[in-house]
């Protein structure tokens, strides 16, 4: 095995997995054993092993969301041993490797727990609330065509870099799952900050934050009580500072609203 630690021994693990046939059904934790797990496997590859075993045995495999397995698409979303994306800091579930666990460990795997993210099946949840928040204003209203030259408006590198940092949010929902209030403030603030920092976002700056926050509330996400677990568990390091920006933007907008309706 190229690059693997030659001393690393295969592991046997006990998994406690949330099983729920569909949204309406009652769910429960079911125990499974997996054997000969290589420490070089990713967490999802370990679940692949479990699922292949289940399928061969005629049992229903565990449904979970995943796609790129490179930590960028934001599909994977497991709550592992009580933490969003598991024990490793700054890491999505797909990039978490089994070398972070030990032989004989018991691992509890649950879906994101938030009423705004209802379960589809097993570990797969519905995160369309995030899409609806973006639809409420997470964009610059420019049609295709007619944009000025890309270098027409210089943007200070520091500003551009900060906007980029906020824009790297992958929309996975780990922040909501980590928050005891199931608040979506970190997610919303990342988009609000990105566009508030950039000159392109100025025209709709006030309506955007008002509309996005209104939609966030409508979706039933909880309030922010400044605990900071969202930022601590964010796999791509979206900073808590964005929530401060969001609060400031919201206040400023409410104080001088463009919303005439």
């Amino acid at each position, binding site marked *: 095995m190229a690059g693997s630690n030659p001393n690393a021994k295969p592991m046997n693990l006990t998994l406690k997995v949330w099983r729920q046939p569909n949204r309406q059904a009652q769910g429960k934790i079911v125990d499974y054993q997996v054997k000969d797990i290589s420490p070089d496997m990713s967490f999802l590859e370990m679940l692949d092993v479990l699922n292949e075993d289940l399928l061969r045995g005629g049992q229903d495999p565990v*449904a979970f969301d995943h796609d790129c*397995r490179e930590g960028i698409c934001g599909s994977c979303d497991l709550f592992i041993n009580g933490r969003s994306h598991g024990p490793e800091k700054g890491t999505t579930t797909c990039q978490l490797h089994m*070398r972070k666990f030990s032989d004989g460990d018991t691992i509890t795997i649950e879906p994101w727990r938030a009423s705004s993210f209802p379960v589809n099946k097993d570990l797969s949840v*519905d995160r369309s609330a995030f*899409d609806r928040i973006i*639809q409420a204003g997470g964009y610059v209203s420019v049609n295709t065509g007619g944009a000025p030259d*890309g270098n027409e408006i210089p943007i200070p590198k520091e500003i*551009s870099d900060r*906007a980029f940092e906020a824009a790297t949010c992958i929309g996975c929902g780990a922040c909501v799952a980590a928050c005891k209030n199931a608040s979506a403030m970190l997610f919303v603030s990342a988009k609000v900050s990105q566009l508030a920092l950039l000159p392109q976002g100025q025209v709709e700056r006030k309506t955007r934050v008002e509309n996005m926050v209104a939609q966030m509330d409508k979706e039933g996400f909880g309030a922010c009580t400044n605990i900071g677990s969202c930022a601590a568990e964010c796999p791509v390091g979206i900073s808590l500072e964005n929530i401060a920006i969001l609060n400031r933007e919201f206040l400023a907008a409410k104080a001088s609203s463009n919303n005439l309706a």
Partner: protein
Amino acid sequence: MQLDSKIPEGPLAEKWEKHKFNVKLVNPANKRKYDVIVVGTGLAGGAAAASLAELGYNVKAFTYHDSPRRAHSIAAQGGINAAKNYQNDGDSVFRLFYDTVKGGDYRAREANVYRLAQVSVNIIDQCVAQGVPFAREYGGLLANRSFGGAQVSRTFYARGQTGQQLLLGAYSALSRQIAYGKVKMYTRSEMLDVVIIDGQARGIVTRNLVTGEVETHSAHAVVLATGGYGNVFYLSTNAMYCNVTAAWRAHKKGAFFANPCFTQIHPTCIPVSGDYQSKLTLMSESLRNDGRVWVPKTVEMAERVRKGEIKPQDIAEDDRDYFLERKYPAFGNLVPRDVASRNAKMMCDEGRGVGSTGLAVYLDFSEIIKRTGADAVSQKYGNLFAMYEKITDEDPYKQPMRIYPAVHYTMGGLWVDYNLQTTVPGLYATGECNFSDHGANRLGASALMQGLADGYFVIPYTIGDYLAQTPPKPVNVDHPAFAEAKAGVQARTEQLLNIKGNRTPDDFHKILGHIMWEYCGMARTAEGLKYAKAEIQKLKKEFWSDVKVVGSGEEMNQALEKAGRVADFIELGELMVDDALNRNESCGGHFREEYQTPEGEALRDDENYAYVAAWEYQGENQPEKLNKEELTFENVKLTQRSYK
């Protein structure tokens, strides 16, 4: 059938302008009477859906993901090319056109590539206006970097996450149209057939991946933007869900499939580490700007490295072979992907590969770290280095990365004319799912360019020409063609569930991937391809008698989804082998060992193979029919590609 590429008359530089004037327009008041289906919401599909909705058409957009923000475009790392010449280094539309045609080893259509280079500049402007945070210089202007196969700096980027930022830009434009009600968004919906009425595409059949419900949707035109088929190899840098199903169903309904054997093997990926591996991870090509590729000079030394007796950092400078710099002094480590991949394979075939499997070469950053410091390197590549360490448990700041080629992109795809229309009227293909503008090899940072060009700036014009000639009366899903297509999809689902065999869809997928990689991968021979064809036919029979899927079609059933995709991959695999066997030459990513220069470079046969091979489906288990679109080159001279 005579293929008509519909390339406009006139000088190369004027074709697109003239064509835009000549295409018919749909009256603004009439646009709302037309429905357009867009399948896939990556760069091409997201951009197309948003732009068509902005024009006033009613768009129905479909994705099998839970959100249109998750398409695999998001994983593109390095950047997007545009002929802006912001760096004053001699770039131009013609140079980008020339580099792309040459990089594709002269197997792309001149007119399409020129248009791509022309609209590339508009893409950057559009994305900046959307708030895409591209990298900038201290003066506030946009930054550029150079990329493999080019000698100018024309690549725009957002650290190692360019695809993510561009996709989120398209997603934001799409979200705005969803909010306006101009796009009806269907998530977790997989397209499983095209509906054709009187020879024209009029709708699709989908399966809701949460409820299992099979649905029909009608429209006046259908745009496919469903990505590439690299996962036919099982292991690739593609995302797990990437598949050929939508394109393959369209193929079976009459859309020709062009150049299926043209696949890109990317040189810089993290090597395979074990049998359990589910996918491979790319390390951006931009790393080749600063990393130096090498292997030990002797087999003996390579053996000691493989056994772990010596560490790469302990090998003296004189004992290293920087083979790309040695063989290609002009381009060095920046040669195009096909050349870099093939050379890495050659080194490993010689027994000089590293890592415990011997299937890896080094990508070494020690010199740049010494020259500019680890901080500067981290600024540029921090996220890539961190990802490498997460996966391999090795620190690339301290020891060279190990890399090996992996399947990354497919240049082949549905045949389209200049308007991006397939051989089925009303059915369009955009982005990676068409056979596209990259010929036999795609240059780095050109996929994002093509996806967005097709979606933002080509399809909005060309689809209007078709719609203007289509009566604006509603298309009704009550037409018997919808019921028939739906019944076909349901029957296939039942068939998959009723086999109740012993092997999982993944078991079959792995075997197929192995056959494709060994015999239709980086190096191909007539003998190997014939063997592969027989093996694939055997595998197809086994699949349809022994695949195991549990549960029902009326629920979320990921094994069922997978089984359907693997079934299509098996059929595609056979066509890829046929295509590779037919093309008795080497070009770009298609390397037939029988056809090489004395130095081991790809040897083209322009006299006999300067054509697009467009395959026509002839029915279940029938050999497909080859149609040829001759390629004519009036603006570039066909030469042996040289990067020396």
